[in-house]
């Protein structure tokens, strides 16, 4: 049975943990015997760093991880110039000319001057990877996860129609835009926005949801990352945040109790702020998922833990 979505697009504000969540999502999808492709678009080599593997190339799609549930994740670092050369080769059989173009600086020129060409080349490449399973391609994947540009640029990046508006009206890139757009608007694709419960990332998430609305692409989940869970209620936190009631812990000195009280006052205040921001996100009307803060830092075990949390909260499998 194939997964519910064939393409997952993960965006988020810088520092929110977008690449980590994209990596964990790929692991969550990679259950028994499945092959998942995880790709990045900005050449930051974040995937290689996350999985502790060699730098990823633009063409090869090496295996980067075997999950405990028996699936495989492959990695790809995409590059617009390479994608353009690939296009010219595939659609015009211009292997030689393409190389000449590259020498003239034309490839750099085209990807730099035509607004959106870079983006549409990258989304096109992702689309091609998704479509391989329809074409019974030997190198097909069960699902593709894209570590997409940050929230500030995501609507522009995905709005392929606007991207090709300035390009030639005929030609393969223009022709493909409709198909890409159809996929992005369908249930075949799911957009996830990763955020921290801080003011700026939450604001950017709200803005991204609003910016995506007119494109017809809907947001599947907002993923709250690094959430600190606490059993205390608002009243208890409120009282603690004032720092006026001294904590009385047996085994600590008075001085230590004082310091603990002050320290916890800040923590309690922060938690209350996080709860407010959680309410703000709730009002977006988009399903929310929560990933707990792992104080031990990021390693492969932590990645699989996040994958497990994603599997519990996001509907990844097709319904019966």
């Amino acid at each position, binding site marked *: 049975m194939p997964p519910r979505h064939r393409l997952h697009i993960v965006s988020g*504000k*810088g*520092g*929110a943990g977008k*690449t980590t969540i994209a990596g964990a999502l790929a692991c969550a999808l990679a259950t028994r015997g499945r092959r998942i492709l995880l790709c990045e678009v*900005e*050449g930051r080599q974040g995937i290689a*760093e996350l999985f502790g593997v060699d730098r990823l190339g633009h063409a090869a799609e090496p295996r980067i991880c075997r999950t405990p549930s028996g699936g495989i994740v492959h990695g790809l670092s995409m590059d617009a110039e390479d994608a353009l050369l690939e296009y010219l080769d595939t659609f015009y059989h*211009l292997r*030689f*000319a*393409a190389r*000449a*173009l590259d020498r*003239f*600086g*034309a490839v*750099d*020129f*085209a990807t*730099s*001057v*035509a*607004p959106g*060409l870079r983006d549409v080349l990258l989304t096109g490449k992702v689309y091609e990877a998704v479509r391989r399973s329809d074409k019974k391609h030997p190198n097909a994947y069960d699902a593709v996860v894209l570590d997409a540009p*940050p929230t500030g640029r995501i609507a522009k990046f995905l709005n392929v129609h606007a991207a090709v508006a*300035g*390009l*030639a009206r*005929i*030609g393969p*890139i223009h022709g493909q835009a409709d198909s890409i757009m159809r996929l992005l608007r369908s249930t075949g694709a799911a957009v996830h926005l990763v955020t921290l419960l*801080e*003011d700026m*990332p939450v*604001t950017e998430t709200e803005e991204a949801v609003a910016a995506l609305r007119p494109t017809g692409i809907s947001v599947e989940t907002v993923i709250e990352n690094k959430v*600190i869970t*606490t*059993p*205390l209620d608002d009243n*208890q936190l409120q*009282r*603690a945040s004032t720092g006026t009631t001294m904590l*009385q*812990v*047996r*085994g*600590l000195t008075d001085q230590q109790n004082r*310091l*603990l009280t*002050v*320290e*916890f006052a*800040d*923590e309690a*205040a922060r938690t209350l702020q996080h709860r407010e921001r959680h309410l703000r996100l709730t009002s977006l009307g988009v399903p929310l998922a929560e990933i707990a803060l792992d*104080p*031990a*830092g*990021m390693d492969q075990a932590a990645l699989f833990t996040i994958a497990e949390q994603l599997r519990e909260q996001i509907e990844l499998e097709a319904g019966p």
Partner: protein
Amino acid sequence: MTAAFFDIDSIISDPQTKIIICCGAGGVGKTTTSAAVAVRAAEAGRKVVVLTIDPARRLAQSLGVGELGNTPRPVPGLEKTNGGSLDAMMLDMKRTFDDVVIAHAPPDKAAAMLQNPFYDALSSSFSGTQEYMAMEKLGQLHHQAQANGSWDLIVVDTPPARSALDFLDAPEHLSDLLDGPFIRLLLGTARGPLRLMSAGFHVASSAMTKLLGGQLLRDIQTFVTAFETLFGGFRQRAAETLALLSSTHTTFLVVSTPQRDALREAAYFVDRLTEEQMPLSGLVINRVHASQLKVSAERALAIAEDLDPHAAAVEIEALRRHAALERAIDQERLLLDRFSAARPAVPRTLVATLASDVTDLEALRRVGVLLADKD
């Protein structure tokens, strides 16, 4: 292995420091650091202008820079007893580009250029334009400062670069692009060996036409023809700005947080600046966790275990949080030590994490104090 302390006050108080550039990955508090440095310098008596790129709305409001205005404006509420001043501005990339065109092209050509659809695309969405215009604006502010002495220190917040130090590469990239062989072929002005390539060029050009469309190529040709008169100016100013950046009057601060990803980017910035022989003065590490309470994570958790889960719910939670904090502190220290061990020559200052967002002048002053305090 402890890194040397980076003393921001010695940089600020040195009259030879004319430009401070803050760079780093997105989301590490670069804009806040720039603003805090600017406020501190101004209140210490410097005449400062701060160029921000994309500040959070509330920080922009507190600096008095709204959506409007591509020119510096005084920041309200500044303490001026030391004779300093502070102006702030937010970069409007399209207006900066328009101003360049209007200032340097003949009036008839300027109008045609501003209306060219290709120019419109280039000035509003070309990936390098923001970086280029930030450099252009920096050059302008520097000239203005020298001409009328309105400022003696410029603090620059760099754009959230797609890849590190794009702003150093952007001017060259843009001029290479607009003056490169492909454009010359498009214009039919190629000479020498390139001329011989014209057969290959026809194939190339027809592929481009198929891809980009004839109209866009025609717009580009019209634009580049009009733009030619500006080339000299652009290249020259880009070269001047780069020279200014590597001079002794400029200094770079690399901003980061004690997280793995951010430090990896910071390492890249540091190495690149060193490689280009750019004057790097130090590393600012934002959002560093700290605790006054000297109780280890293990001990805190052990104590919590012995408490009554109902009667002492708040105490248990406080201890659990303290344990998590201690672990975060250990983790951060490890990452920072590793960074400094590999780059011992780079001094650093640590800025403790704040309980709330930095949205007003008072909070910026507090950040300034944390920046300047020896850790």
